[in-house]
């Protein structure tokens, strides 16, 4: 046995050391949260210590960490990291099958749950997040530019529609391209100053940009209604037929000879977001196989190599920001039309963080992964509602589990943009 092998600590020692480190950190954090408690004493607040509770927490952290480590190690040895070199075709088949079934499920959902307002509403929300996830995926997943202020473009889209419709009477379909264009413009506006930034710096500036937009909307009361937001935003109509019990002209249910139901509008909204999301998907998939999209990915992989290959990194970055922003703008229009009321509260950093979490959990750059991650992030809190107080705990645990078990995201494997036909490889 060599000296190196002798000197290497055993797995048990490593695990003990790891557990001790985690316990130390946890203990520090738990000291104010658990070790100290405020009590009311004769009308004044006093601080008491709870050493026994703190000690129990430490013990729980220590043994919990040991168990977690053991479980994770067992998991990783049982399933050794498969390092397949070539893009596997079974993967592609599986993906296509999963994609097709998801699409079918999405299209058929109202057939089975058409009278369930809760399901349709949740599914519509899911649709928005899928669309936002696909949009941000262009910036973060494909181009590798960390954007923490993505919600700003969503806000631009929403406020564009809200203002154009309430002030100037624009319809949903008229405002959609305008809002997309304006959001794209904001994307370029943000893109310019951050062209030379990468990583952490880029994250900070984009974070600030998102906050600036929100703070402006909050304080420019004459323009955006400030904290009161904008209400009375017209709902989209079915090719001019409003979803109302009665209206001046013909309504949707009159035209089709149906009995009035508030579900008609909700189902229409649902199909609308499914359509918008599918268009987004088609656009992004198409761009990926064009030089533009390929350049986004090359930029993520190696900016210096890009420069030496004559790729104009400026236009590549700006086009990624603009495309992502435009898609968020579209989603924002839909959001405003669906809610009928918007305020800056809907466009906080938490929203950006959620969308980013969807992209990262999905496995950066994977379109299908975004759907799965969005489903986890949107549906899980809903399911967790039954656990009321533990909802965020369950949510956090699920996030930690996913990142521990699949550190690269749910679907980390990148699909090639060019499929090669093996039969053709022998031809000249």
């Amino acid at each position, binding site marked *: 046995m060599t000296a190196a092998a002798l000197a290497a600590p055993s797995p048990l020692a490593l695990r003990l050391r790891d557990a001790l480190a985690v316990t130390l950190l946890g203990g520090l954090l738990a000291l104010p949260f658990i070790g100290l408690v405020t009590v009311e004493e004769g009308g004044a607040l006093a601080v008491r210590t709870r050493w026994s509770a703190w000690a129990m927490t430490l013990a729980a952290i220590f043994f919990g960490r040991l168990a977690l480590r053991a479980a994770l190690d067992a998991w990783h040895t049982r399933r050794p990291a498969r*390092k397949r*070199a*070539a*893009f596997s075709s079974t993967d592609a088949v599986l993906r296509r099958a999963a994609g097709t079934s998801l699409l079918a499920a999405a299209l058929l959902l109202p057939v089975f749950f058409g009278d369930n307002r809760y399901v349709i509403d949740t599914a519509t929300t899911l649709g928005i997040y899928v669309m936002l996830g696909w949009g941000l995926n262009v910036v973060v997943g494909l181009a590798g530019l960390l954007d923490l202020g993505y919600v700003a473009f969503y806000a631009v889209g929403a406020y564009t529609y809200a203002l154009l419709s309430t002030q100037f009477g624009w319809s949903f379909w008229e405002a959609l391209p305008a809002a997309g264009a304006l959001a794209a413009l904001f994307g370029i506006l943000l893109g310019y100053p951050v062209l030379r930034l990468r990583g952490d710096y880029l994250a900070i500036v984009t974070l600030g940009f998102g906050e600036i937009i929100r703070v402006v909307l909050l304080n420019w009361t004459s323009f955006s209604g400030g904290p009161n937001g904008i209400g009375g935003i017209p709902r989209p109509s079915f090719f001019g037929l409003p979803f109302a019990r009665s209206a001046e002209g013909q309504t949707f249910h009159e035209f089709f000879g149906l009995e009035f139901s508030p579900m008609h509008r909700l189902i229409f909204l649902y199909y609308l977001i499914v359509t918008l999301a599918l268009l987004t998907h088609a656009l992004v998939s198409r761009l990926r196989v064009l*030089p533009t999209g*390929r*350049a986004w*990915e*090359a930029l993520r*992989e*190696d900016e*210096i*190599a*890009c*420069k*030496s*290959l*004559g*790729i*104009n*990194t400026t236009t590549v970055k700006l086009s990624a920001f603009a495309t992502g922003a435009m898609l968020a703008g579209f989603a924002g229009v839909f959001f405003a039309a669906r809610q009928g009321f918007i305020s800056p509260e809907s466009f906080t950093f938490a929203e950006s963080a959620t969308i980013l979490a969807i992209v990262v959990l999905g496995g950066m750059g994977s379109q299908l992964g975004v759907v799965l991650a969005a489903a986890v992030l949107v549906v899980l809190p809903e399911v967790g509602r039954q656990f009321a107080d533990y909802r965020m705990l369950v949510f956090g645990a699920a996030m930690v589990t996913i990142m521990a078990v699949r550190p690269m995201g749910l679907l980390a494997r*990148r699909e*090639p*943009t*060019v499929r*090669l036909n093996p039969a053709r*490889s022998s031809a*000249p």
Partner: protein
Amino acid sequence: MLELQHVSAHYGPIQALAEVDLVVRAGEIVTLIGANGAGKSTLMTTLFGTPRASSGRILLEGEDITALPPHRIARRGMALVPEGRRVFAKMSVYENLLLGATPLDGAHVEENLRRVFSLFPVLETRRAQRAGTLSGGEQQMLAIGRALMSEPRLLLLDEPSLGLAPLVIRTIFRTIVALNREHGLTILLVEQNARQALKIAHRGYVLQNGRIVLEGSGAALLADPQVRAAYLDAAS
């Protein structure tokens, strides 16, 4: 073909190139040798505008390219195989090659692919594979192939032998010679592997602390006692 006139370059306050004069004539293999940190890579990337030359002029086929943006320079028939290969690891061999064709805006892709595949048959068999999973030698071939996709007349190679096994290095050097002799490519080759580089080069330059300290034909430099002492005896 390429001419540097008193070119200096800086990283902030640090001077990396000092008044470099260098000429590459059409059809030549010119090698640039020098110790680690001498400024060889800087010279290569300065040709592409990062960092920009702080003084002096760079002429490519008689035209001043000193102030052109990098993506314009690549459209003028000059391609760089960067130090450390820098292939796009998560993308397939095929996608890497397509990206190399960017300066041509997608023209002649099929022909150029065929040429690259005939030069490096291994790339054709591996074309659906992730570039990051190729061996070091294959990655170097891919990096060269990627550069060739833009139909350059002048090819810049920055330490193509870096970290490769001797057998693979021989293949790479043979390819460089073939590109020059058979395909008429003009080549500027940066190497630490001075002996082999000087053997295949028509002329060579020795860079030391950002300055050209010696120049001459490949054979003359190989025989030069100073060069032998500094770059050959220790290395071999």
